[in-house]
């Protein structure tokens, strides 16, 4: 999807780093104004941070995938699989509880990547298949859900999962660290630049001599492994591995990335936008929860509409600021 030079009639899916954070700021302010302490209180903000951390991990990997012009639908299932394997592996100690799920997730990432990068099957279809497969495997490991593996309370892993530092849970810090690493990887390494290029114009990237297939494999491995990390954390938090969790998480992660201004068609976007997107989604969710009087159905109507409105506002803002920048 190249749009060289043409300045009208191209869908206005331009990237802008200012849009999402601006909207986020507005939403947070509005939330604080309406709900005061119950929203802006330390505990509630801590909850939002914790809740966001898993999504941030997944969305960071997803950003790479989407920037490379792909999509990864398998993350929701991988989250569950990783959790189940964490709990399963916990019987032999923390090391296996972490290594097993990460290794398996990495393997899934490799398979995704090879099928997409080498066999050149559409990412949507490949990861849809892995979505099914990983969920099936999670159920198989959990004996069709008949067995729930419990993580022993004394394990280092559990303590890690529940540790707090400066008022924020360990997952939050880990997610932030991963995010920072992601920023460096994306913006300051050749791999990161190649990721952009592959998503922007794959044919050109190939003709420019970039290792297109390798880049595509790597982004899916990254996405799967980061999802695996999130799965380990979720399991550590809940002290168990459930094969049912994570359904629909892929759409949430994709939404966060796209709200953050990244083009679904690839090639343009930013990780900082993704961070804003993640927080935006979670803050909205939290705010909607604050309105105790909304029934669950209205909550859905409101959050769907809100999503659209937020993106609309963001589009307007970024169109305007892009115009201003150019002149």
């Amino acid at each position, binding site marked *: 999807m190249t749009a060289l030079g043409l300045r009208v009639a191209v869908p206005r899916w331009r990237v802008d780093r200012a849009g999402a954070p601006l909207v986020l700021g507005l939403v947070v302010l509005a939330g604080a104004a309406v709900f005061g302490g119950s929203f802006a209180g330390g*505990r*509630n903000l801590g909850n939002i941070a914790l809740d966001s951390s898993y999504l941030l991990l997944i969305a960071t990997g997803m950003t790479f995938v989407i920037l490379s012009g792909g999509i990864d639908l398998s993350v929701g299932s991988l989250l569950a699989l990783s959790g189940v394997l964490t709990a399963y592996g916990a019987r032999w100690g923390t090391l296996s509880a972490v290594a097993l799920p990460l290794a398996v997730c990495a393997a899934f990432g490799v398979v995704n990547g090879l099928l997409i990068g080498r066999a050149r099957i559409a990412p949507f279809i490949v990861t849809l298949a892995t979505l099914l497969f990983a969920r099936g495997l999670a159920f198989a490991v959990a004996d069709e859900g008949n067995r*729930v593996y419990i993580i022993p309370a004394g394990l280092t892993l559990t303590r890690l999962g529940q540790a707090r530092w400066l008022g924020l849970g360990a997952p939050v810090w880990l997610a932030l660290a991963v995010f920072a690493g992601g920023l460096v990887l994306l913006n300051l390494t050749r791999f990161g630049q190649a990721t952009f290029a592959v998503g922007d114009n794959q044919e050109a990237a190939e003709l420019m001599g970039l290792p297109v297939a390798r880049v595509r494999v790597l982004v899916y491995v990254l996405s799967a492994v980061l999802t695996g990390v999130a799965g380990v954390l979720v399991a550590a938090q809940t002290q*168990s591995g*459930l094969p049912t969790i994570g359904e*629909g998480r892929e759409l949430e992660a994709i939404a966060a990335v796209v709200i953050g201004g990244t083009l679904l068609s690839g090639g343009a976007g930013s990780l900082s936008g993704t961070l804003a997107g993640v927080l935006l989604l979670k803050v909205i969710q939290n705010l909607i929860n604050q309105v105790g009087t909304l029934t*669950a159905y209205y909550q859905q109507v409101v959050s769907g509409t809100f999503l659209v409105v937020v993106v609309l506002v963001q589009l307007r803002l970024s169109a305007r600021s892009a115009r201003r920048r150019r002149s």
Partner: protein
Amino acid sequence: GDTAAPAATGSAAQQVQATSGATGCTPERYNGGVPKLDLKSITVGFAQSEKEANPFRITETQSIKDEAAKRGIKLITTNAQSDLNKEIADIQGMIAQGAKALIISPLNSEGLDPALKAAQDAKVPVMTIDRLLTTKTACKDYLGWIGSDFVVQGQRAADALIAATGDQGQVAILLGASGVNVTVDRTKGFKDQLTAKGSKLKIVAEQTGDFTREKGQKVTEQLISANPGITAIYAENDEMALGAVAALKGAGKKPGDVKIVTIDGTKGAVQGILDGWIAGVIESNPRFGPLAFQALEDFYSGKGVAEKTIISDKAYTKDNAQAELVNAY
């Protein structure tokens, strides 16, 4: 002990069958002590786990709301829409909103730890209903539990099916949603009971119908197409059973050709007994309101709450369906 049921509505309310475990959980003992409050003056939060799409959940939530209204207690409710993360966020959100006591209907026996932790930190007692938090400790992680014994429900369903079929023929099981302990327990109770009774019923298929009518219908259609010899169906909830009925009708079967036994006790299923399509329904009573609020009241009044309160579920058969239809939900 059972108290005599006054009227139709009264007999629909949950009856305590048995209590077990430690009794007498009070604010002083709960998790190292929580503030003793006046139930009338606090906000209570209720976390529903699944969509209020089927009669069970609708009735469950309504019962909690009705009871709160009756007692003049301020109630806030949430619905997790079968999403564990949402339930955790819901519970945390209600605590943040100032709920001082919680009633939760857990989505699963596991996985709510972050929410329970938040409640502990905020010194908010949590009463659980319906599904049991199997690995948690009463009066510490949560206050107590009220609910049915799902394994027993499965066993009673097996008994009912043996009776309805004369203990012969091929059975298909419509499983509930995968990975949910209700499904696991109801399946286990059913199968164990068949073995225990030395039943000659042969299970030829077990496929998930996700607790929904649509999938119950579709799966049944496929199953009877592949196994025309199926003469009995065990559906793990009423919605799937009603889906199965639709499938049987569509395939040109007559009422009674295939014996269906199901669990829940919804109006539709009990009506199904009257119409001859359903052979028996084991009740799973969702009207938790009175008992749940009673538990909170007992807690704060110092009377104390039992660890487990198992309710007695009815069974609907051809014989009592007409009379009991009003009590079905």
